[in-house]
């Protein structure tokens, strides 16, 4: 009996000490003055130092990748030195995109329940029609069927496609499928996240830039001061890490007077992000802006802000249709759009160029732009200055 009571007490003590430890780690940003403030800055600096170090490591592996090696696990397309935009590629290799009618492309995507991926699919279909090619598009129903996606990829390789364009669910679930595709001389292209270090090319928006654009916009609107908070998505996702880091680095690098008072995960879930924002609004009456890792979470935060009647700026990432509607309605303030429709076209164009033997960089950055009430009704092609690829058969 005594032992049991002791066990319960120990468990309780453990739980309390856990909370206490965690609190020490997080509480320095809570009171924004005095010694704890310098602590925050120091830890921020430490963090960015760490990032720089790992950046060097990534560049190292990047070089080896350029030479056709399998590439290191630390591959980070946002920091790839040879990264190019599609305009630069067209300038270097000529505007004409070579196409052979019997080239077959296979596409593997995830979760068509997400508008972002549906739009990407439409982009692929449009590109296939323009180029007069067959593209076999496969997608999982949700964002957790990792093995299902692997099976799809392997099946496409077996069917004998010339190239695979893949948007994997995690950074690792397609690794073995890509290795066997590489062995079978199928060109492998990684489109958007997650990341496949072993793929021949990466085509997608610079997620780090997403965060930078958002931070810059918020800074302009707030006169570069005030409290801001960040809602992150699941931290295993590359995009979540890069967007958050881009946002924080912009504030640190520009000596911004904006102060990040809170940062929490909301699992990409709208309800959870709303609840998070509810709590923040009661805790930080001076909060001026909330940056969210995607639009879904931003739309949840918008509901909390509307309910509270405060005028906190809310910025998301992705540019889904609902976000555009919300911006038009004057609720959401801005979103960073990665234009999946055009991303797919860039991906197809790069794939075709690479099949034809043109030398392409390991990473291709696709167009992105910040959308707010001023350009929300503008044509996307105009915003990103899009010229359709010139396919030649």
């Amino acid at each position, binding site marked *: 009996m005594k032992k049991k009571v002791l066990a319960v007490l120990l*468990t309780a003590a453990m*739980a309390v000490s856990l909370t206490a430890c965690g609190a020490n780690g*997080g509480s320095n940003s809570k009171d924004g003055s005095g010694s704890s403030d310098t602590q925050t800055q120091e830890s921020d600096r430490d963090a960015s130092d760490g990032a720089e170090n790992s950046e060097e490591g990534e560049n190292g592996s990047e070089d080896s990748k350029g030479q056709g090696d399998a590439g290191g696990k630390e591959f980070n397309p946002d920091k790839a030195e040879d990264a190019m935009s599609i305009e630069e590629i067209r300038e270097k290799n000529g505007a004409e995109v070579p196409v052979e009618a019997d080239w077959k492309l296979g596409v593997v995507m995830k979760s068509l329940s997400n508008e972002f991926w549906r739009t990407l699919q439409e982009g692929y279909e449009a590109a296939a029609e323009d180029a007069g090619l067959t593209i076999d598009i496969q997608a999982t129903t949700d964002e957790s069927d990792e093995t299902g996606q692997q099976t799809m990829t392997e099946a496409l390789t077996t069917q004998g496609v010339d190239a695979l364009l893949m948007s994997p669910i995690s950074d690792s679930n397609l690794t073995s499928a890509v290795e066997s595709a590489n062995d079978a001389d199928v060109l492998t292209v990684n489109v958007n996240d997650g990341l496949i270090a072993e793929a021949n090319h990466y085509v997608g928006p610079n997620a780090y830039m997403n965060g930078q654009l958002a931070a810059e916009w918020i800074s302009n609107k707030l006169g570069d001061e005030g409290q801001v908070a960040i809602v992150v998505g699941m931290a295993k996702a590359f995009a979540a890490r890069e967007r958050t880091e881009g946002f924080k680095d912009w504030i640190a690098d520009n000596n911004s007077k904006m102060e990040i008072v809170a940062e929490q995960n909301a699992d990409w879930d*709208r309800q959870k992000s709303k609840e998070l924002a509810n709590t923040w609004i009661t805790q930080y009456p001076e909060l001026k802006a909330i940056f969210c890792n995607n639009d879904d979470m931003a739309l949840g935060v918008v509901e909390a802000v509307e309910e509270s009647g405060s005028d906190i700026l809310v910025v998301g990432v992705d540019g889904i249709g609902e976000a555009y509607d919300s911006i038009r309605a004057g609720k959401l303030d801005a979103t960073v759009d990665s234009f999946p429709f055009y991303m797919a076209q860039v991906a197809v164009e790069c794939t075709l160029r690479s099949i034809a033997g043109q030398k392409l960089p390991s990473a291709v950055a696709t167009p992105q732009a910040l959308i707010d009430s001023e350009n929300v009704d503008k044509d996307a092609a105009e915003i990103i200055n899009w010229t359709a690829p010139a396919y030649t058969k």
Partner: protein
Amino acid sequence: MKAIGTKYKREILVFLATVILGVVFTALNPNFLMWRTMLTIFQQMVLNGLLAVGIMFAILTGGIDLSIGCTFAIVGIAVANCCVKGMNPFLAILAGLLVGVVLGMFNGFLVTNLKLQPFIATLGTMSLYRGVAYVVTGGAPVTNVPDSFRNIFNGQLPGGIRYYVIVMIAVFVIAHIILSKTRTGDYLYAVGGNEEAAKLSGVNVAKTKYIAYIVSGACTAVAGLVMLASLGSAEATAGIGYETNAIAAAAIGGTSMAGGRGTALGTFFGALLLAVLKVGMVVINVDSFWQYVVTGLIIIAASYFEFMKGDIAAFTARHKKERSM
């Protein structure tokens, strides 16, 4: 007074644990004790509380309802579509409740008529219902739910208390009355405690189980309505993983996973404790990943306590017996 103390021992202990947790958070950040934070806590326990009280009914009969997160999504989508197409909001609410009842009834059918194990049956409907949600919406969210619907739940009483908090309390009160004052309540405990004995003493086991799953579906439907009012849009992906939190709330509140034991009040405090934890962790600005760690520890500690309590009871009973001999 002493009678209440022994009858609701578990509930009082969970409440005390919640208070202690609150004191710890307040010590770490005095802001925790604001009225607005309290309101936030109550608002944020609503969804989990409603789901937990529903799933508790299924657990009481010795079953489980894993499909609640998906029923939650379907109800949201159904009601959102009704509202957007201009249906009277109150009719839409009735339609939503009906959807919840029907989906719950189907679970009941699988468990009683087809004699499937509840875990497997609702694991099946979990995938089935989620699939239906995807198919119906084509994956796209249903948006622009009119304010005429949203205000029914989102409106505020003086002091900032939202109507949906009142709705949740009403559901808990009804659940408490069903469980403690009606014959149906007795049957639910009897079926969960010992199904054979209940059957032999004339309890309609099949009907009782149907009721449990229907209540689970109905409570989930109410949660779906609250979610829809709160967000103004419904998605097929809503509610993924919510069943685990609901089970946790019920378990912390003293619901036995073997069935036959558990109260509405206990589940209420279980959900309250989890909400205090959730809001508190944000208030003291701890990385949310720690929430999972702490929640896990609390569930383990709570069920260990449950196990220990049985031991103590056996010990005292033996002791008494020895003395009387």
